[in-house]
């Protein structure tokens, strides 16, 4: 009989038992990468919670919360212009000439007041330069401060609470009702809707003639 030489195996038998594992990994990895990209990359992950240190330990909790000072006392221009102007030092000193005149925390403020040099605050809600947001357009349509800035009256240091991403803006522009309130409640931090918010929102939308636009030109120029 002729020889039936045996041939060394290239791959041992057990290799084939690895197939399920390999297939599993191969199918999961790309999915995982996509998910990682989407969530890891979204402003919800990267921007929310941005809380830079400010030159003055100004506490909204104290002023807006405990003392209940209306937003517009300091951010005077919010109803008429695009910008909700940060108040001049003057505004601080209106009260703080009398209250805590000696407080060491207020040193930068007093300096600014005397020297006339501004206090350099750090912008927290910082939109890209190609985005044009107009406060007056929203505030005078019954969109409350809380909707974007959250409970500032509970913030010792202001923190970005919302992603302020394009998608997030669109969500509201597509369905404004649950974000509307009567004009005189706009700056009210603790306002609770009487009854169903959406239904109230619908009525307010009628009343204020609100038709939010999804046009690019609304925010980008």
């Amino acid at each position, binding site marked *: 009989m002729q020889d039936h030489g045996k041939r060394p195996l290239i791959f041992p038998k057990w290799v084939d038992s690895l197939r399920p594992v390999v297939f599993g990994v191969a199918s999961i990895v790309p999915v995982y990468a996509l998910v990682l990209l989407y969530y890891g990359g979204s402003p919800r992950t990267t921007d929310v919670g941005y809380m830079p240190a400010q030159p003055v330990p100004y506490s909204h909790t104290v002023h807006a919360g405990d003392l209940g000072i209306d937003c517009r006392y300091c951010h005077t221009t919010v109803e008429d212009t695009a910008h909700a102007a940060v108040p001049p030092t003057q505004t601080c000193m209106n009260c703080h000439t009398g209250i805590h005149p000696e407080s060491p925390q207020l040193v930068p403020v007093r300096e600014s007041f005397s020297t006339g040099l501004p206090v350099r605050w750090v912008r927290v809600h910082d939109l890209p330069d190609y985005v044009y947001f107009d406060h007056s357009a929203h505030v005078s349509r019954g969109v409350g401060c809380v909707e974007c800035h959250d409970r500032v009256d509970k913030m010792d240091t202001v923190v970005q609470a919302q992603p302020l991403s*394009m998608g*997030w803006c669109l969500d509201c522009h597509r369905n404004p009702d649950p974000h509307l309130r009567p004009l005189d409640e706009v700056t009210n931090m603790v306002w609770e809707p009487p009854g169903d918010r959406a239904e109230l929102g619908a009525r307010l939308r009628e009343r204020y003639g609100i038709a939010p636009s999804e046009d690019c030109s609304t925010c980008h120029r």
Partner: protein
Amino acid sequence: MSVVGTTAPSADPWDNTSDDPTRRAPLVLGAADYASVTEKVAELAERRRPPRAWYIAFGVSLALTGLLGAMILYLFTTGVGVWGLNSPVGWAFDIINFVFWVGIGHAGTLISAILFLFRQSWRTGINRFAEAMTIFAVICAGLFPAIHVGRVWLIYWVFPLPNQMQVWPNFRSPLLWDVFAVSTYFTVSLLFWYMGMIPDLATLRDRATSRVRQRVYGLFAMGWRGSNRHWQNYERVYLILAALATPLVLSVHSVVSFDFAVSMVPGWHTTIFPPYFVAGAIFCGFAMVLLLAVPARQWFGLEALITLRHLENMNKIMLATGMIIGYAYFIEFFIAWYGGNVYEHFAFVNRALGPYAWSYWIMVTCNVIAPQLFWSKRIRTSPWVAWGICVFINVGMWFERFVIIVTSLSRDYLPGSWGAYKPTWVELCTLLGSFGLFFTLFLLFVRFVPMVAMAEVKAVLPQADAHASPNEPERRATGTLAVEKA
């Protein structure tokens, strides 16, 4: 297939180009049996050192690829302004090269798919590296649309990916169609190529002596063992892929032509574009295959597998498509005149007589006049002459895209905004570099992968017929894959 030239069978044993319908010319020459085919092909991928020519060619190609990289780096860091573009000429070398390479990329799938469906068994000699060529050409092609955009780091916006902006691509844009067409074409070609290669990889695996080669080829062969139950599914899928790839080939270049046809630029807005582009693609695709085949068969001694008949058939196809192109050039002018649209009319007159007339006449000479030489069988069957003509054809086809894009853009509607275009050295180097990339990939391919489909060639050997018996000569030289009809 048109039958032209002398029908007298030549005495030369290496000449299988006889057109005598009563005799079936063999597709594999020399005293070929299975083992010799395997030996001939596999040996190329196994030999220690490839011929010196390979090293020189590879060195040059690699250098050019480096040049390409440098140009792209410069482009990315500085801006599209490093090219000679302007308003009105917003596209030039970038899109010219794209269309050029996509065109090249058509012969491969065409040879493997369409000829397969038409049972042209002579494809077996050339389909493997025609397909390889396709893939490498599409890689080069895909490069250009990607780098031509102004903000390349945002190129992924052309894909419909969910994003925090909640915006989507604009599916009305021909450029987006391109994205889908080209990526689909690349994927399918790759699958087709790889699948066709599995049995041959198995061959290399079984012949391999070193452990590494065994393992590597073994992995890629995926445990192929020539089981007939496998062959059954394999052949069916191969048929299906061919059937899918055939319309795909036509669609891809049609879509590419939509980039122009769908626009309203005079000279672009033409209904004739899709068929005309497809014909052009096949034309220059085959030219490129021949460009590669002639040297390859000589350096690697593959005359027995890539025979004169293969070359001649390709030349015939080039002759035919070349005439389709010529017809298209003519009919464009006719329609421009007959259609009575003043802007279109000027666009074409301007092509032939305007500032870029030189490019137009280069195009006509290379694409319409040069292929006419293929009427002569002598030229069809002399490899290096044909090779020279193919060089012309590729040059001509590149200039065809130049003419279409640059002359049309430089003078559109408002004379006040007419312009001119002149390429910068960056563009020239980038074009050169893309050839470098192409040949680098191709040289690696011929070095490590069986460049002829062994299994398929064996199948067209006379002795491959299971019902082989001396008294049925008609069925000689035919295999399961091939039933050649005259």
